[in-house]
């Protein structure tokens, strides 16, 4: 089959590789109809996530048709149309039983590696380094889906792929980020990053009843989408004015947002050139893996007693983490890889009922063979790129 493989920093190629096979009784094989490039794939592309290996198939947002099932997969049959959640979860361990799917204790066959990095292993993830198991990803014609009796959701309406594809990751991830904020009506929420996950965090905060939702980014076209499509009430373009914290204070009458969502992660950009250069240099020399402008600003901007929701991906260590502000302002941090399985049914219902159409983020539709160009376009935000969907 054809598959998008990582072949070193800033290089992906579409190559011929063997077709996946059923390896265990709870596996299924899916023929992929649509797959997407995630912002977090750029962290792999850019070489910031350790334990990548040349030849790794990328991609953790995908859907398609079931073409083969293992003996113990009794909820799916050949021909079913499914969306596959990016975390691989067994459904049987204590974590899964408590709906903490991305912390599954059994799905990462490189648990020993992960334990060294994080103290404990976390779940397996498709196409996302060997730290999360070394599973082949879904930017390919086919994928093997382990624990297929637990993860995939069947799509039984004739909704377009683009309306349901993002149930695999970015819609639930943005939604969980908003849910972390304990919105009960009337809150001010600031969302750092108006990429695809940020857009869904904004839309979800609106859906949950926030009164004011402020989008922060440095690209005008993304802020425009945040305001016109996702429902942001205010926007901050930090390419115009780098002092995000003061702007947030002014927009919230001096109080600061009740909750802040970091939808940026470890490759944050910053309006202050010198600070950015210092962090960038440390990353290059490997004395810091995570570049943290967004999270630092988020903590400084959050109102005392508020919530810091972190859904942007981090991988290692960060310097100058503002522990003083965090502690003295009595902030609550909530974070994690999304427990996608928890949100599949309720969010699918929102889509079916027409309360949200997740396809609004799609700006680019390309064939799988165009993946190398698509990564470049997405990385450099060329051609007003927000979200790329690839068709195998």
């Amino acid at each position, binding site marked *: 089959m054809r598959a998008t493989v990582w072949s070193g920093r800033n290089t992906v190629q579409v190559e011929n590789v063997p077709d996946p*096979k059923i390896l265990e009784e709870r596996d299924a094989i899916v023929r992929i109809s649509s797959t997407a490039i995630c912002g977090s794939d750029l962290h792999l592309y850019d070489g910031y996530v350790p334990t990548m290996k040349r030849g790794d198939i990328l991609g953790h947002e995908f859907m398609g048709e079931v073409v083969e099932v293992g003996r113990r997969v009794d909820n799916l049959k050949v021909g079913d149309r499914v969306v596959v959640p990016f975390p691989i979860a067994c459904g049987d361990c204590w974590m899964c039983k408590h709906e903490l799917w991305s912390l599954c204790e059994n799905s990462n066959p490189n648990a020993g590696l992960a334990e060294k990095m994080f103290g404990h292993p976390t779940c397996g993830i498709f196409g996302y380094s060997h730290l999360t198991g070394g599973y082949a990803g879904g930017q390919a014609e086919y994928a093997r889906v382990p624990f297929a009796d637990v993860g995939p959701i069947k799509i039984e309406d004739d909704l377009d792929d683009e309306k349901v594809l993002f149930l695999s990751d970015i819609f639930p991830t943005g939604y969980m980020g908003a849910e972390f904020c304990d919105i009960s009506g009337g809150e001010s929420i600031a969302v750092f990053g108006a990429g695809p996950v940020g857009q869904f965090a904004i839309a979800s905060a609106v859906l949950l009843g926030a009164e004011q939702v402020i989008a922060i980014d440095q690209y005008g076209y993304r802020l425009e989408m945040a305001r016109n499509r996702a429902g942001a009430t205010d926007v901050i373009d930090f390419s115009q004015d780098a002092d995000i914290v003061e702007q947030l204070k002014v927009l919230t009458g001096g109080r600061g947002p009740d909750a802040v969502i970091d939808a940026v992660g470890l490759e944050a950009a910053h309006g202050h050139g010198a600070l950015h250069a210092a962090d960038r240099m440390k990353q290059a020399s490997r004395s810091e893996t995570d570049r943290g402008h967004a999270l630092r600003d988020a903590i400084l901007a959050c109102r005392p007693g508020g919530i810091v929701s972190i859904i942007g991906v981090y991988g290692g260590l960060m310097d100058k983490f503002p522990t003083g502000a965090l502690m003295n302002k009595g902030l609550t941090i909530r974070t994690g890889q999304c427990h996608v399985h928890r949100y599949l049914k309720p969010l699918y219902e929102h889509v079916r009922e027409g309360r949200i159409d997740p396809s609004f983020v799609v700006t680019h539709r390309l064939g799988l063979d165009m993946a190398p160009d698509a990564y470049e376009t997405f990385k450099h935000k060329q051609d007003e790129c927000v979200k790329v969907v690839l068709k195998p």
Partner: protein
Amino acid sequence: MNRTAITVNRPRDEVQRLWLTPERRPEYIAESGATVTFSDAPGDRGTEIHVDLGDEGGRLAGTAKMLTGRGAPPLAKVKDDLRRFKQLVETGVISRSDAVPEGELAERKLKQRPAQPLEQDELEKAGVS
């Protein structure tokens, strides 16, 4: 540190019974001469399995490593065994990826395959299919 522990989300009598069955019995631990104890985990979380390799790091492990001069450290092998036992008892299958087709394996830590599907002969070599 020559001790390690894992919690299996099943009652103690079931865990102890499965530990002794031929299909589930963790071979490396059994042959290492390690001391194994079982206890109820707090808060209805199942059963804790504690393994103590003793000062020598387990007699068989130590000897094998001395004779061949290679192989993973005994504690890492014990952890492999415990994770596989937990997977089999809780899920009924071994978690296998393309990079680690055998399932959790200390020897694979530094010799990962790329994460792309294996050819049939590679699968057979890895003992899968």
